[in-house]
């Protein structure tokens, strides 16, 4: 008798003896012929019993795979937030250059236009790093699904996108690499009814694919010059904004009062009402304030450099976790968790400029 069971669950596990059968029912509706399932299950039992000794390992691999996927995704999302600050800064740069052009009677200046076009093009190429991080996040998410309920299809497409974006990013920073075909080769080894050890094998295979692409990008980021390329744009943005601010103050339009208050706050000092009119005539005080403004600007650039270093450290911290997973060793998440926390602190120090 063919009996149909309507299944709506995303993940089911059936224990048989000491073995575990992990049965994936994709999201949505799926109809399964139970008599066929019973036959397959009968044949599978012997495999399961043979694999019983490996079950503990499989469970640990799946659990570690899920943990690595979660921490890897969190790290990638945080790195992306740190990396996209410069993308949002382009609008601030355009405003500053527009002001500087207008003030200096250079509206339509060909060099200003070329400069902004070059900066936009550079920023566009560098945003490839953000796209790569998005793909990394998706791949970890898909690996987590693979570890949880053998969601093979998602991983297959995610790792393909990660490979494409790895090659695109390397090309964008002038260090083209060739991704070997096996970097995205399928990890699928069994059909809908999968024993835990096979699912664990798939997770390990997925881990190796991500680790390989991760290593490629780490090598690119480690090369001298890549960091300068990625943060040079920030220095130029900060310089143009600083120039516009200096012009605004020199013309008596903007005030140094917020800067004075910030400087004096730790000493309990507050600026007086006519501070700016005094500052403008005291060249030493003005030079001091200008220096503080430049320092704040430098701090923003240095936070980008620090974010680059921390992101690279985070990527490097993921590699031994992959290796632990692949060798069945426990994961030590301390390094990656600490680095992600530091990235969060950097992002909080200099939030992206508000845009309307």
């Amino acid at each position, binding site marked *: 008798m063919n009996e149909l069971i309507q299944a709506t669950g995303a993940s089911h596990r059936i224990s048989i003896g000491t073995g575990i059968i992990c049965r994936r029912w994709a999201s949505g509706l799926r109809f399964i012929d139970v008599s066929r399932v019973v036959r397959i299950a009968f044949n599978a039992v012997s495999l399961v019993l043979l694999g019983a000794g490996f079950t503990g390992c499989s469970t640990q691999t799946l659990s570690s795979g899920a943990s690595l996927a979660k921490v890897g995704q969190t790290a990638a999302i945080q790195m992306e937030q740190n990396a996209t600050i410069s993308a949002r800064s382009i609008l601030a740069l355009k405003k500053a250059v527009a002001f500087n052009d207008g003030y200096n009677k*250079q509206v339509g200046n060909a*060099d200003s236009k070329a400069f902004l076009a070059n900066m936009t093009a550079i920023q566009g190429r560098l945003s490839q790093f953000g796209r790569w991080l998005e793909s990394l996040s998706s791949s970890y998410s898909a690996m987590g699904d693979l570890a949880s309920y053998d969601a093979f299809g998602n991983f297959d497409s995610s790792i393909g996108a990660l490979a494409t974006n790895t090659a695109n990013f390397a090309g964008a920073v002038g260090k083209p690499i060739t991704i070997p075909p096996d970097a995205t080769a399928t990890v699928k080894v069994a059909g809908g009814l999968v024993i835990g050890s096979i699912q664990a094998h798939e997770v390990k295979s997925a881990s190796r694919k991500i680790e390989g692409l991760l290593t490629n990008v780490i090598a690119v980021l480690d090369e001298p010059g890549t960091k*300068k390329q990625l943060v040079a744009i920030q220095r130029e943005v900060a310089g143009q904004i600083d*120039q516009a601010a200096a012009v605004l103050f020199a013309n008596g339009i903007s005030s140094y009062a917020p800067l004075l208050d910030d400087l004096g706050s730790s000493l309990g000092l507050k600026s007086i009402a006519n501070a700016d009119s005094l500052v403008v005539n005291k060249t030493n005080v003005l030079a001091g304030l200008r220096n503080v403004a430049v320092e704040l600007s430098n701090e923003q650039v240095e936070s980008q450099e620090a974010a680059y270093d921390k992101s690279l450290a985070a990527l490097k911290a993921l590699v031994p976790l992959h290796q632990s997973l692949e060798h069945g060793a426990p994961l030590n998440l301390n390094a990656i968790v600490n680095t992600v926390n530091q990235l969060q602190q950097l992002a909080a120090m200099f939030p992206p400029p508000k845009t309307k």
Partner: protein
Amino acid sequence: MANTQPAPQPSAQEVLDSLASAADAARQAYLAALAANPGADLSDLYRAEMRATAIWSAAEDKALSNDPAIAAAQAELDANVQKVRGQLATLKDVGAWLTLLNSLVQLAASVAKYFA
């Protein structure tokens, strides 16, 4: 007879650093002139600054060609950048700044031609 060794070929990044430094020196010169001459017309200085900035940003987008003459051109540009930086605190005259910046821009342009 002295055996003159050719100057080592600079890397693309080293040349980009020189061009970025030239653009920054031009901006600092503008700001120094602004501080010393509030309200003065600094549009010529600004034009020179943006020229230097555009040269750097265009080079940033290109690859460096393998011409040995670039080492000497880079050295001359770096020396000029130092000259500009050395006068930031003392030079007040806008005309004198303009002469210095125009020279800087010419040297930056000559270095940038080695980018394909």
